[in-house]
């Protein structure tokens, strides 16, 4: 038994990769559709959009690049679907240059699904260089920050932006962010000075870092990771990519939990010499070397 534990402790990582691949693929091919509980932080974003009267200005900043597409793209689809269903005036943009093409696709795609007209019901402002400074610039003068939209139309002439001179006229803003500039930048340089209501949608990795902002009301709601996107899809009655991905996420989480428990079991059973050599090889978090340091 001790020998077996020692062998398994040195398990080839390719075996783990195969396990994860299988755990991801099978639920995607044969979904189970387990119930998803909606959290209060996601519900607050939904409720705020529900409370906006038709014609309100909804600014969506897609501050992410293709690396975060699996988590944030479904979120964008769900939020845009909700906004178009509520007949809000949708103004989309991005602060990440590598996200521009992807952001344009999702905005124009969902808009066409709901028969919305560009320039009248929605616009995509595109990307403007300057990071957080773009937010200040938009807060001061939106037309100066974006003289034209992504398609080359003068923003001052767009019907969808009628009466919107700066961020002060925005009724609700959501930043879908994978880093900086993102939700924090929109709070510090935008909401704090120009007074619009702000919500956030972020990758699961950075979501825990935004809970202090949520607790103080600096952001009114938070959609975190694929789970948050799935919750939003449930709220608007849409079974999209996020809901489909939750079964795969359930399976991979359980595989990882199983691996952790097994490794700890092998660790206890394996001979001390094997454990010591394993420790030296890892030198990872919690290792004796690291603890001494």
């Amino acid at each position, binding site marked *: 038994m001790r020998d077996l534990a020692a062998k398994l402790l040195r398990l080839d990582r390719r075996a783990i990769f195969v396990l994860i691949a299988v755990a991801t693929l099978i639920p995607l091919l044969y979904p189970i559709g*387990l119930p998803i509980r909606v959290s209060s932080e996601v519900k607050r974003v939904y409720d705020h959009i529900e409370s906006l009267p038709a014609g309100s200005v909804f600014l969506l900043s897609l501050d992410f690049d293709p690396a975060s597409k699996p988590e944030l793209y479904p979120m964008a689809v769900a939020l845009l679907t909700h906004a178009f269903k509520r007949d809000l005036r949708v103004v989309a943009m991005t602060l990440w240059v590598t996200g521009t093409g992807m952001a344009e696709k999702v905005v124009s795609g969902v808009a066409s699904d709901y028969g919305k007209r560009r320039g009248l019901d929605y616009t995509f402002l595109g990307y403007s260089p300057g990071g957080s400074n*773009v937010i200040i610039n938009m807060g001061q003068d939106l037309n100066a920050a974006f003289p034209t939209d992504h398609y080359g139309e003068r923003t001052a002439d767009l019907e969808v932006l009628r009466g919107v001179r700066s961020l002060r006229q925005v009724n609700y803003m959501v930043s879908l962010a994978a880093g900086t500039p993102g939700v924090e930048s929109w709070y510090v340089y935008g909401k704090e000075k120009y007074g619009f209501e702000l919500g956030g949608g972020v990758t699961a990795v950075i979501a825990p870092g935004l809970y*202090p902002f949520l607790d103080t009301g600096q952001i009114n709601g938070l959609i975190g990771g694929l789970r948050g996107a799935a919750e939003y899809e449930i709220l608007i009655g849409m079974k999209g990519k996020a809901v489909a991905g939750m079964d795969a996420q359930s399976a991979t989480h359980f595989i990882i939990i199983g691996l952790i428990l097994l490794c700890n079991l092998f660790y206890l059973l394996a001979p001390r010499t094997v454990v010591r050599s394993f420790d030296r090889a890892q030198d990872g978090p919690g290792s004796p070397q690291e603890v001494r340091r």
Partner: protein
Amino acid sequence: MTLFLRRTLPLAITFLLGVAAAIQYYIPHPISEGALTQMSVWLRIMLGFAMVLGIASLCQVHYAKIRARIAGWGYSLIVFLSMLATVVVGLWAGGREEGTGFGWIYTYTLLALQGTMFSMLGFFVASAAFRAFRARSKEATILLVAAVLMMFGRVPLGEYLFPASGPVAGWLLNVLNLAARRGIIIGISLGGIATSIKIIFGIERSYLGGRE
């Protein structure tokens, strides 16, 4: 004269603009707001030049690697080739993506490569979790238990099997995580304020360059 241009003038500009920007925030007068509008436009223009500087620096680093044939110099060559190809195709397409080669590069290389890189993380995280998450000390045990509870509570299967895991994960995020994060944010903010004051008053001068 050189010392004046290299040290005194940048320090004076930093002091004046730093103090002006701090005061401006508290004066909502049209003149003050107009100044902020102008400043935000100027900042964006300067960032455009910073981008040029960044690209020049990137080229310098990779050119040095290729010239010295440092291990992995082939990757530096790929950086140059792909950058050149993207710029040429982008200029040829007039910056438009729809139905152009530029759009093709974006969709079939950048989008695919970035997606692949991020997806691979999932596999490495699983492998790392198997090897690193062990109860070797009190701290490691706490981390391990918290990680397992979070992984249970954030997926439907976990909540289905153990209904209490969802609220437990929520409590971990809303109480323990929040308290720790708040402390970190306050610390970072105080550090940021202190550094800003040091820069405005010329105590911190590393931004002037090494020869100052």
